[in-house]
């Protein structure tokens, strides 16, 4: 049966656009939820995320506290909601930094001459060779811990990966038939770059970016574990996760829910990224 399946795929090819899948729809719904949690968290919250109540610490999930309470008696659900903005901001801006730097490096390598390509290649290798965590440690001890530095650290350590992909795209697009055709038509370098090379080389970036956001959130949470992430008491998923880890055997809810948010966000961004990629692929 699967043989047939295989050959069928071979015949059909991949160009047929697929209708949106259930997964994509669910992902979009979750994105909407995240958006509300980011812009207007109070609409979703059931309590003040910062209000402490030591006497009500470590309460398991209940009707009053959907996700239970943490070690200071704060409502975990409201904190998770509150943390959305910070966590996503870290994810989004870290990805933005990584992409921006990746664009710069990849652009220089992909569009500059051979020498520039070689030099940037080495620079990239240096960034790659630097253990990401060390980069993060150094940046954080340099500028102090906090979401901003965690963001920069994560952004920097993802940059070489992006740079590599962008360079590859640029090289492919640069030598493509349509770029050549544009040259034959007599278009100038700048126009070809602006109209053809950049838009086509950068189209996959949207997909990459969506995939990067989730990974960046995970990365930032690892920094929080090492005590280098967000500043207390601001709730951030990674920080909540690492704080709750201490109590994993006694209060599972402290880790499960922020962890779930991280996983869901990553999955969501990946699913959306895939959907975008599929659409882009179909268009090509």
């Amino acid at each position, binding site marked *: 049966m699967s043989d047939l*399946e295989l050959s069928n795929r071979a015949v059909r090819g991949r160009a047929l656009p697929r209708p949106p899948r259930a997964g994509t729809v669910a992902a979009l719904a979750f994105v909407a939820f995240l958006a509300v949690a980011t812009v207007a968290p109070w609409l979703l919250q059931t309590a003040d995320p910062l209000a402490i109540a030591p006497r009500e610490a470590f309460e398991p999930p209940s009707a009053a506290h959907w996700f239970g309470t943490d070690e200071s008696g704060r409502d975990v659900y409201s904190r998770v909601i509150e943390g959305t903005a910070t966590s996503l901001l870290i994810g989004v801006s870290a990805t933005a930094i990584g992409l921006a730097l990746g664009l710069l490096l990849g652009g220089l390598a992909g569009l500059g001459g051979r020498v520039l390509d070689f030099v940037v290649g080495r620079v990239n290798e240096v960034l790659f060779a630097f253990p990401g965590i060390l980069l993060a440690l150094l940046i954080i001890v340099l500028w102090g811990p906090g979401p901003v530095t965690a963001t920069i650290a994560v952004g920097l350590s993802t940059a070489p990966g992006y740079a590599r992909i962008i360079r590859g795209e640029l090289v492919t697009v640069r030598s493509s038939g*349509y770029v050549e055709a*544009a040259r034959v*038509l*007599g278009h100038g370098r700048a126009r070809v770059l602006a109209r053809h090379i950049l838009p086509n080389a950068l189209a996959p970036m949207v997909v990459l970016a969506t995939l990067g956001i989730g990974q960046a959130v995970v990365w930032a949470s690892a920094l929080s574990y090492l005590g280098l992430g967000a500043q207390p008491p601001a709730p951030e998923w990674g920080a909540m996760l690492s704080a709750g880890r201490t109590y994993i055997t006694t209060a599972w809810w402290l880790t499960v829910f922020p962890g779930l948010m991280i996983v869901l966000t990553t999955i969501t961004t990946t699913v959306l990224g895939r959907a975008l990629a599929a659409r882009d692929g179909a268009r*090509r």
Partner: protein
Amino acid sequence: MSAPVLEVRGLSVAFGGDGRRRGARDAVEVVRGVDLTVEAGTCVAIVGESGSGKSVTARALLGLAGSGALVRADRLTVAWADRRDASEREWRRTRGVGAGLVLQDALVSLDPLRTIGREIGDPLRIHRRMSHAAARARAIELLELVGMPHPTITVDRRSGELSGGMRQRALIASALALDPPLLIADEPTTALDVGVQARVLGLLDEARARGAGVLLISHDLAVVSRIADTVIVLDRGAVVETGPTAEILGAPRHPVTRALIEAVPTEVPRGVGLTTRDRPVRSAQPVVEAARTASAASTTGRTPPPPPAPALEGIGLSKSFRVGAGTTHAVQDVSFRVERGRTLGLVGESGSGKTTIARLALALAAPDAGEVRLAGEPWSPLPERDRRTRRSRIGAVYQDAFGSFDPRWSVGRILRDALVAARRDPSDAAVTALLDQVHVPTDAAARHPLALSGGQRQRIAIARALAGSPDVLVCDEPVSALDATVQARVLDLLDELQRDHGLAMLFISHDLGVIRHMSDTVAVMRSGRIVEHGDAERVFTAPEHEVTAALIRDSPRLARGDGSAGFR
């Protein structure tokens, strides 16, 4: 050997109605009630336009139509075994053993990551439980059989390291590995240059001589006429005509068959449309002829004006590439000239430097030596900035039209962009005019090239090249990706445009028929040099160089039973 190796009655294949929840469309029948019989030691050819269901039929014979495919047949006997309700296991016993299949896309039908020895050895390993060593030894024998150069070395190569012809032969070798009584070859010669094509057809012939039944699939009647005993003509999934080759090709009864035959350019003289035979497209005297007459007349005067400069001229061009450790001399000391309103055809085997010349002409590459002149003025030596304003004087049409379109742009945008490049008004009217010129419906402007047929795409590419009202058109294999009938339409279009606008054309193809049909003068290339150059008719009828002669000899020609011309 009484029973035929392949007997099919009422074969139908439908797609789409596969019960998948989404896409619950009605089933589309792409093969409808096909009957087929292949006797041992004979060759049956299925011909038909692109999309007529040839490949689907072939794959259905080995149970490879796909799980989405609904296959029905009153009779389906492959290698003497009834396969109507075969399980996957049973099918596997047929594949490779009872029937060998050579897929249509030879260039990508070998796993690029495995050596061809492994690929050829696979059936032996799977069906005969041969050891790797034994399979490899047999693979070498098979490679010898198919005439692969240096089989002992090639056996450890991977498809990426082989030329198209070598890949095709390796693929045939793998189909022949178990010496199956039935060999199905789906378009085994497309995209091959004529020499290789001849050798591949020879292989099929040998297989048939050894007693195998051969089912050949092609849209190229010239190829079919060469080896098939019987021809089956498919149209939209149904058999419209069937019979002995000579009969079908000599006296086609069905219009589809006739159209197929007429589309073969070889037999059609220069200046006669391939699709509209009744009306020769060059009814009026060509512009250039007129000019020539005029100039001839003026020679009677006292001061002969200097002969008009050729539209495109190459003088002593050389170009080499550093490849790995060595240097490839892609073009060596080549000179040519293309007059206004005339076509220079460039032929030659694969890798002989044709494309390189096109790139030099388009100033996409700079020659190492020599010069390209456009309308008598320097072209290649100019800095790109100075060339840019004159770029609209020379247009280009490539083999891969699709790849030459920005994948993000609609047809309209592509054409507008070309108008802008030529400093013309990029209005909707201008776009419509361009589309009209190439006979593409104007509503295509809003569409993406993906939503167009191959022939339409090629027309858009031509329209784009025309946007700047060029004097010169460089066409590099503009029709080799198209099937015969579509090819015919595109060639007619080019002809018409040349007539209307006095275009000079540098026309590149490895297909002698096409070249002959299109060219006024012909240059034959080999290893970067022009070995013969002259008037088209002269070159084809009285080749001087052995390379040319060999090309003409190997080139398949439509042979008819009575040898008479096929058009009214």
